[in-house]
């Protein structure tokens, strides 16, 4: 998902480059900050919410209910998901930012480091959300967002080509895939710059997580992806790369992998819930990802939710909207219907578990590791993917390249 480069990217580029020029207030919307117009009910108060295209409709439903109940106005601003993080960081300090924005949990480190988000107090409602969702939005003991969905990878299987459940090890799966007699035994997106998010389950199966975990499950900034386990994974990449059996191929991008699976050219694909819509009409199953290194191949879990701006002038309304509207079963189920991601509210997650595919992803999520949200992670992404791509291409000696990557990341973290 992280790699889904769309036309939006260039807009990101332009916006981010100009973000530093976007300082002082632009021409204003005079309705924005009228403390003086305080009417005796919610009327006259405007809550500005940034939301992306996928989540627009369900958020609108929550907003309509909220407007009706409180009389306050909710102004939804549709933005590209890729733009939101940088724009939010740039605009909150000027006081021009929104009250609430949609976002992903792995932004949390950067957002707190810059002091642009404020904590949300759930009180007794905290127990209504799945643990992993709430933990992902927790930083230093406080929760900073209201989660609505959990997403993670799984092994999507074409039941017509491979009727049996996916074997537990990678080699057995490849063997089963070859038996199916399709063009590819298995596809996974890599692309020229590598795709560590999609590849990380296999890395985890070698016992090489990115960072050490503290006792409470949060990540410390100490790298753990090096060492023998990491190098064993690097060797595995090379064994299946261009100079090996070629199962991993940097030419296979997200689009190519998706089309191959859609056209019945492979029985297995590593993918997330966002793909399900694309494979409409196919007989599918979602299985745990087979292990390559002996340990369970757990994917990263990504949690999506809504953040409250540290400079919101409507804190009470924002909390009310998020906790009592976004955090309700109906809206969370609607969010699921819009994006196929597992709801973060336990009650809503139970409701959708009758769908076997949704249940497949949700079961995998139970053991998955949250994607690190600490600011140091940015430096990891920079080197991680390209190193994997180099090893898969056979351009670099696996162990040496992996060691260099680790020291480069350490250098970048400083």
């Amino acid at each position: 998902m992280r790699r889904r480069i769309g036309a939006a990217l260039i807009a990101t580029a332009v916006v981010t480059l100009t973000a530093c020029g976007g300082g002082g207030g632009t021409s204003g919307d005079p309705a924005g900050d009228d403390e003086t117009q305080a009417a005796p009910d919610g009327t006259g108060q405007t809550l500005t919410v940034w939301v992306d295209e996928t989540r627009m409709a369900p958020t609108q439903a929550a907003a309509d209910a909220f407007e009706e109940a409180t009389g306050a106005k909710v102004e939804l601003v549709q933005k590209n998901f890729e733009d939101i993080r940088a724009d939010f960081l740039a605009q909150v300090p000027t006081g021009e930012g929104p009250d609430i924005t949609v976002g992903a949990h792995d932004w949390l480190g950067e957002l707190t480091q810059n002091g642009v988000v404020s904590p949300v107090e759930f009180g007794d409602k905290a127990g209504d959300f799945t643990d992993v969702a709430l933990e992902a939005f927790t930083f230093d003991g406080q929760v900073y967002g209201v989660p609505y969905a959990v997403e993670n990878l799984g092994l999507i299987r074409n039941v017509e080509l491979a009727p049996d459940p996916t074997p537990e090890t990678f080699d057995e799966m490849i063997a089963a895939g070859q038996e199916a007699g399709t063009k590819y035994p298995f596809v996974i997106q890599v692309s020229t710059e590598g795709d560590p998010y999609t590849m990380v389950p296999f890395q985890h199966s070698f016992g090489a997580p990115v960072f050490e975990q503290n006792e409470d499950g949060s990540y410390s900034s100490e790298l753990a992806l090096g060492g023998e386990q990491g190098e064993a994974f690097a060797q595995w990449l090379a064994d299946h790369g261009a100079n090996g059996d070629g199962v991993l191929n940097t030419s296979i991008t997200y689009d190519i992998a998706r089309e191959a699976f859609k056209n019945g050219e492979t029985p297995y694909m590593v993918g997330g819930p966002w793909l399900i819509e694309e494979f409409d009409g196919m007989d599918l199953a979602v299985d745990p990802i087979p292990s390559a290194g002996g340990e369970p191949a757990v994917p990263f879990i990504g949690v999506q939710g809504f953040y409250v701006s540290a400079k919101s002038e409507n804190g009470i309304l924002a909390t009310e909207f998020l906790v009592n509207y976004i955090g309700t079963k109906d809206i969370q189920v609607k969010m699921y219907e819009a994006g196929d991601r597992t709801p973060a509210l336990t009650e809503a997650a139970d409701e959708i578990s009758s769908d076997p595919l949704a249940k497949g992803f949700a079961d995998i999520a139970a053991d998955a590791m949250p994607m690190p949200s600490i600011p140091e992670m940015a430096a990891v992404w920079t080197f991680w993917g390209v190193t994997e791509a180099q090893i898969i291409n056979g351009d670099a000696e696996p162990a040496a390249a992996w060691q260099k990557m680790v020291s480069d990341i350490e250098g970048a973290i400083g």
Partner: protein
Amino acid sequence: MTQPEAPPEERRSKRARESHATSIRPGFFIKLILMALINALGVYIILAAWSQQSWIILAVTVFFVVLADIVYFTKRMLPLKYLLPGLVFLLIYQVFTVGYTGYVAFTNYGAGHNSDKADAIAANVMQNQRRVEGSPALPLVVVEQTFPGTDLGFAVLEDDMVKVGTEDQPLEEAPDAVVEGTTIVEVPGWNVLSWSDAVARSQEVTQLRVPVSDDPNAGSIGTQDARTGYAYRSVVTYDPETDTMTNSDTGMVYRANDRGQFQADDGSTLTVGWRVFVGAENFTTAFSDQRYSGPFLKVLAWNVVFAIASVLTTFFLGLFLAIVMNSERMRGRKIYRTLMLLPYAFPAFLTALLFQGMLNRDFGFVNQVLLGGMPIAWLNDPWLAKLAIIMVNLWMGFPYMFLIATGTLQAIPGDVYEAAKIDGASGWQQFRRITLPLLLIAVTPLLISSFAFNFNNFNLVYMLTGGGPRFTDTSAPIGATDLLITMVYSVSGLDGSASRNYGLASALSIVIFLIVATVSAISFRLSQKMED
């Protein structure tokens, strides 16, 4: 209007005496309407800026609106009448942007230094509030004191007992309060605010902390939804007199340092910092960091090669096609000319993305269809990737050169060629001695601007190769096709792949600006010499 026999002085004074009212022409009405629109827009911006308290924007707008009125409604400032619109846009879009970039280049604006000091203090306090362990969620209403002041306070229901207090007055029992279910409806001596009243005073309510008791460790009640209160403890507090923040759990004292952070004696800092001036530090970092100084030269060299190559390739292909299409012997020239413009009509980033797919080693159109399945690693090999960049740029850039070459060719008078033919010049000689020199005089400024544009051709590189393939012999995230501008983008973390550093990005942008400006200035000087 004038009498031809009148002496010149008299004519001039007569015209000066004429007011606009007496010499109304249609153009005046158009001017009036345009100026009315401009003034209306100005007034709108002024009012909006007023309500947003953006005084700088307000002042600048007032200045420009008044200036525009003076310039266009008096007779004296004739040159400015022509120059003003251009000047205004130059100031807003160029001078301001460059100036602001220059300002940012001397600050440490970036990750951890995102706002001002007040925001940083507030954020550090907010992030270090803890719920008092084991404290319950208390039903709460917001209340307003009726006597002696009108302080805002909270009334909470704890163990069937209503307690009320303000910021300065710890919670006290209010035995006469009326409770319905778990809702406090009346507190004698206090005015109970409805939820919507509380919402209207959102900021005051969410920032209010009412101490539970005289013991500071018991915490103070705060609320986010004006319905439920929780006891919080501020672990970190700010003391404005000493400009320090203190962590009451560890006793550590953090002092504001000149790097825009609160720092303790052991060197540890609080999470959130603020923007400060750091002098020329961003510039020295850019050139002294070992990881970047080596690759910087490689990137600079490739950047220059790319910019020159892209100008030359696009210009000569465009010129060649223009000459061919200019020949009257060719049929269907209009159709071809239109087709030639198609690449120009597509957005550049889309073209780059399309080519990225077409150049895929195993599945791309180029290898599969055009080259019969040869697995050429267009985007994985450093040299091929550079070639691919230049070729794709040629595809995107030649229609522009084709357009300007076509226009200029048609402006060269035909009799020059006839004279040359009579003198017995060959086709090549005509091209070399007549076409090219005449053409170059006209298009050299455009070539220079094309050079400047391609020097910073961010879209193409970012969309096609992302700067890759990555150098294997450096520790910086820089690749073989990175231009300076894409290098700046990733090195300063603007793409989210490292911690953001707008200060460094601005400093490097200024360096690039200086390079481009220098090259352009020299080229213009040379081209002027050529014209003489």
